[in-house]
Structures are given as C-alpha cells and as structure tokens.
C-alpha cells in the first residue's frame, strides 16, 4: 500500500498536508500521533469511506479514491477493520456478529459457517461466549469479537483503529499479542492507528509519527526511541511538556487575568 | 425456533390487517349494494330537489325498493331530472304513480317516496313518473310563515 501527497481538508482546517506513507505487505505498521491528528480519518481514507482532496492512495495496485462502488466493495471484502468502539451489531449475538460478513458475502451452508465462526472465535479465545449479546461483553471482549468478525472473511489486510484505547492492562496485553500472532499466522498486513506508545511499539515493525497533518518521523521502534528530535522524544517517552505544548493556544495568562479584573 | 415464532406473529398481524380491510369493505361500506343495481330505470322531473343526493333511497309505503342513480338538470325546462333505479321484483308499479321528495325526521336525509296510482299498465324501464312533488325547502317554508304572520299582525298593530 502506498500513499503519496495525500491532502485532506475538513472545512477550513487542513487535516493532512502532503502525507506520504508506505505500508509493506505482511508487516505490522503503526501510525501514531496525539489525539485529534486525524488518525481515524486516515483509516477512513484508506478504506475509501471518504475521498481525499488530492493525492494518491494505492491498495494492492488499486487506486482507492477512483474506484467505483462495486470495485470498492470488492476491495473492502479483502480488508477487515476494527473500530474503536468495536461497532458490534447490538441486535445480534456474538456468533451472528462474526457470521455476519460470511452470510452477507458467501453462499456457504450453515454448517460450514458454524465451523468457520467457531474457528475465528477460538482464535480470539471467545468460543465459549458465542451466545452472549454485545451488551453483556466487557470492552476488551467486545473488541476481540470485533477482531474475529474483521478476520472472518480471511482478509489480506486489517486496519485497527485505536485497538488499545480504554483497555485495562490485561486486555491490552491480550490484544497486543493477538494482533501480532494473527498477523503472522494469517500472513496479514496490519495497520494500527494508536496513541498508546508502549503497546504499539512492542508489536509494530515500522512506525509513522503523525502530527499537525504531516509525517514528523518514521522508522522502526528502536530507531525512533533513539531519535534526536525533541518532538519524537516527547511523544515516545510521554513527557507532559515539550514542543507539543501542554497549553491549548491562549492569550498570555497574565493579561487575561488582568483584563478580567479591569472589567 | 425464534424465527418461526416471529414469522407466526407477523403472519397473524398481516392477516388481522387484511381482515380489518375486509370488514371495512363488506360491513361498513356500500359494497353490498354495488352490483345489485339490476333494477329498471325510471325518470322523474322535479322543480326543486332540495338536498337530494345520488344513492338516496326510494321507498314505497316505507319499504326501500330502489335508489337514486342520477341527478341532472334539464337545460330547456330548468327542471331537475332524477333517475331512479327500482329493484326488478317490484315490476308492477302503476304507471301513474307519483313521487315526492321527503325528509327523514326534521333534519334527516332526503329520500324519494312513491305513492302508487290506479292505472292498469305498469312502469317499465325508461318510463317516467309524471306526478311529482318537490322537496320542502325549509328556508322557503319559514319565509312564508313570516310573511303570513306579518300580514296577520300588521292591522292589529295600527291603532
């Protein structure tokens, strides 16, 4: 997958300016950056849900923004996506959620679907939870079910949107390991969008750091850990203040307080 | 199992809806009278039909024997031309029968009442009723009452 000169605006605000990315096949690539830098938007661009203002997005040789609806849908059948919230269908139980893409896109017999769904659920360790409704699952379990659903059609690539956000340490550990093992076992191409540095760095083969609509730095986790850039240093080591200011842009503190007193 | 249950309930719902339509059509509306119109046609001329409507009943001795199927204005005589459909089993009405427009109750709907005559030949399809009596128009009636009263009172008032 290649991205060249990608630009995207929302209203007046530029979300991306001339972004270039290369995502190699069979590897785990992570795109990291502080909240609000448009990481989710990037995934939606890759999945063809929104179109860029300019630039090239090529997935497996196909130019995503130029695809017709039918071709796009064919491409998406080979892409799995794990949403931040899990996005399980609340009116279906775990089994039917995982079976959903199989039932929509294949004409397999119910027997075969049963087997396939149990295999996917086994892979995420939730075979025993197949009768539960999404509301009965914990956040971590819901995300694992969503992961099982994302790989139900044996896609060539999986997009993860903030897979670790809001998880307790144990679920985080489970998910980190799952993403890595699934990637290697199923020969997937994985793209993780996240701001959880430690977990992401632990499993990613290659990292891109995104800030203010541009790629600030990229490299393997080890390379980035040693980066001389103060920004990368702040982000990778989670320092509260640095080039990324702790304060939201505001007028000078003193003048604002004094102004209030005067008024 | 659950799907079966669902289908059963939905089936019952659709059946209930259709049954309601059927009830409305058969029990509430005039469908029972549609298609029964095999009666013979007779016309009658009236000076004024008041509030007579198409489908108003035609009765004889209080028994409904047909209904009004057409109301037109004769452009030459400016009379109302009312077409009646009379059920075929009443085919022995004397040809000099008379028709009047009556009102059910004080403010009820208007209908046509027939009064049998004494002739030996009978009304046939396309025939006409010669003797008619127009509707009582309430406004005219009241108007006349007032003029009568005024005429009666006028002398008494002058000393």
């Amino acid at each position, binding site marked *: 997958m290649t991205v060249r000169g990608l630009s995207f605006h929302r209203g007046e605000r530029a979300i991306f300016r001339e972004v270039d990315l290369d995502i190699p096949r069979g590897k785990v690539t992570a795109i990291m950056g502080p909240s609000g830098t448009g990481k989710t938007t990037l995934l939606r661009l890759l999945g063809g849900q929104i179109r860029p203002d300019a630039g090239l997005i090529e997935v497996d040789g196909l130019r995503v923004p130029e695809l017709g609806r039918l071709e796009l849908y064919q491409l*998406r059948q080979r892409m799995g*996506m794990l*949403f931040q919230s899990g*996005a399980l269908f*609340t009116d279906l139980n775990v089994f039917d959620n995982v079976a959903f893409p199989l039932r929509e896109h294949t004409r397999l017999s119910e027997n075969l679907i049963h087997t396939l769904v149990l295999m996917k659920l086994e892979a995420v360790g939730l075979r025993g939870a197949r009768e539960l409704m999404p509301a009965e699952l914990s956040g971590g379990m819901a995300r694992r079910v969503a992961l099982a659903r994302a790989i139900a059609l044996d896609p060539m690539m999986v997009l993860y949107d903030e897979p670790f956000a809001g998880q307790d340490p144990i679920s985080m550990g489970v998910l980190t390991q799952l993403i890595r093992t699934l990637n290697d076992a199923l020969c997937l191409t994985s793209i993780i969008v996240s701001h959880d540095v430690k977990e992401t760095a632990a499993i990613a083969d290659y990292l891109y750091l995104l800030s203010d609509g541009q790629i600030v730095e990229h490299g393997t986790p080890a390379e980035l850990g040693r980066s001389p850039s103060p920004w990368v240093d702040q982000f990778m080591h989670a320092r509260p203040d640095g080039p990324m200011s702790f304060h939201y842009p505001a007028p000078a503190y003193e003048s604002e307080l004094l102004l209030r007193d005067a008024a | 199992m659950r799907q079966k249950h669902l289908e059963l309930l939905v089936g019952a719902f659709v059946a209930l*809806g259709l049954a309601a*339509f059927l009830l409305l*059509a058969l029990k*509430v509306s*005039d469908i029972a009278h549609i298609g029964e119109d095999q009666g013979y046609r007779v016309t009658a001329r009236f000076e004024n039909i008041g509030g007579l409507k198409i489908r108003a009943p035609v009765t004889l001795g209080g028994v409904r024997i047909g209904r009004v199927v057409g109301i037109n204005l004769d452009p030459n005589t400016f009379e109302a031309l009312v077409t009646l459909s009379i059920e075929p089993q009443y085919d022995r009405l004397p040809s000099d029968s008379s028709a009047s427009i009556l009102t059910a109750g004080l403010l009820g709907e208007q209908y046509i009442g027939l009064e049998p005559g004494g002739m030996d030949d009978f009304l046939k399809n396309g025939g006409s009723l010669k003797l008619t009596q127009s509707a009582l128009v309430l406004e005219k009636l009241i108007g006349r009452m007032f003029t009568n009263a005024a005429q009666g009172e006028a002398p008494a008032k002058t000393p």
Partner: protein
Amino acid sequence: MTGPLERLGRWALERLTALGRANLFLLRLLGALGFLLRRPGLLVKQLYAVGVLSLPIILVSGLFVGMVLGLQGYANLVYFGATSSLGTVVALSLVRELGPVLTALLYAGRAGSALTAEIGLMKATEQLASMQMMAVDPFARVLAPRFLAGFVAVPLLTAIFTAVGILGGYLVAVVQLGVDGGAFWAQMQARVLLWEDIGNGVIVKSVVFALLANWIALFEGYEAHPTSEGVSLATTQTVVVTSLAVLGGDFLLTALMFGVW
C-alpha cells in the same frame, strides 16, 4: 453580527439543502429495495418491530376513540331524533380522518421515534460505518427493510384502528345506549362509499402517511449527530416533523378528495 434577514436567509438555505438531502436519501432508499427480494427474512423481523409491537396501542386507542365518537355523536344527535345516523357519523369520521391521521401520529410516537433512535445509535456506535467497511451497503441491509416494513405496516394498522374504532362505536351506541343495531349498520352502509371514502381515506391517506412517517424517521436517524444529544434531538424531531407533515398532508389530501372549492 448577523442581521435578522441574514439569519432568515441562512435558515432558509439550510432547510432547502436538508430537503434536497432528504430527497436523495429517499431515492437511495427506493433503489435499495430490490435487495429485499433476495432477503425476505429481514423484512419479517422489521414487520414484527414496527407492526406487531404497535398493535396494542393501536387496538386500545382505536377502541377508545370509537367509543368516544359513539358517546359524543349520540349526545348531539339525540336532540334531533337522528340517533339512527350514529353509525354513519362514527364510520365517516373514522374512515375519512381519524383512522389514518391518529394511526400515523401514534405510529410516529411508537415506531417512528424508535426507528430514529435505532438508526442514530447505530451511526453513533459506528455500526453503519463498520458495515460499509465490511462491504455491506447499510441502505440495503439496514434502512430498506425498515422502510418497507413501515410502509406495509401503517396501512394495515390504519385498517385495524378504523375497524376497531367502528366496533367501539357500535359497543357504545348499540349495546350501551340502545340505538337500533340494524339502523346503525344500514345507515352506515348507505352512506359510506367503498372507493370514495374507504379507498381515499383508509388506503390513499394511510399510504401517503406511511411514506412520510418512515421517510422522516429514517432520515432523522441517519442525519443525527452521533452523540447522545444528537440522537435525542433527532428522536424528538421525528415526532414533531412527522406530526406536522401528517396533519398538513391530511389537510391537502382532504381538500383534494372531499374538497368543495
């Protein structure tokens, strides 16, 4: 600073573009209906949700409205000695106006608001987006079955409401107040016309209201802001807009069908 005129202009433009989006939405919805031929099972589930589950409120309301019509009609007609026309009064009010209008209003409150909330929440929880990413068109899979189910359910519910209402009127008039049963039905049958009254009232009106109610409910849900406030606003909006559209539409339809101008 914006003057009142600018605000009015902006408001009008916003309304117009929303109307345009609503029309495109309806077109996509109609375009997606073909999908249901392959998956009739989806329709059954939605018919249950909007039809079967709306039955209790429709049955109870219909019965009470009919009974009230019977009581009020009797109280007024008895002065003119015209209680035998009670059947006509009850049936014509229900068939021409109250049946289709009240059913549509009750439907908007009971099923329309639920549809909006459901779609709005599916959007807020990214279920629609995830469906798209699974290469499943939410219009075909989620919206079209709900639309068609509602479109079928409203006329059926209207017929049920009207029929139950007339039975309610019968109960009060004939069983309770002693109006002659034969006159009740005979007068009704003499005055209620199959096509002009039942066709126009129960069928044409309810089909138009079904279109309005479901279109508005689904559109509001689909356009809802993906937050809890957005969904609650959209739900309220559905009930308000549907009620206004149904009442306004009813006036237009009545003027066209039974109008005397």
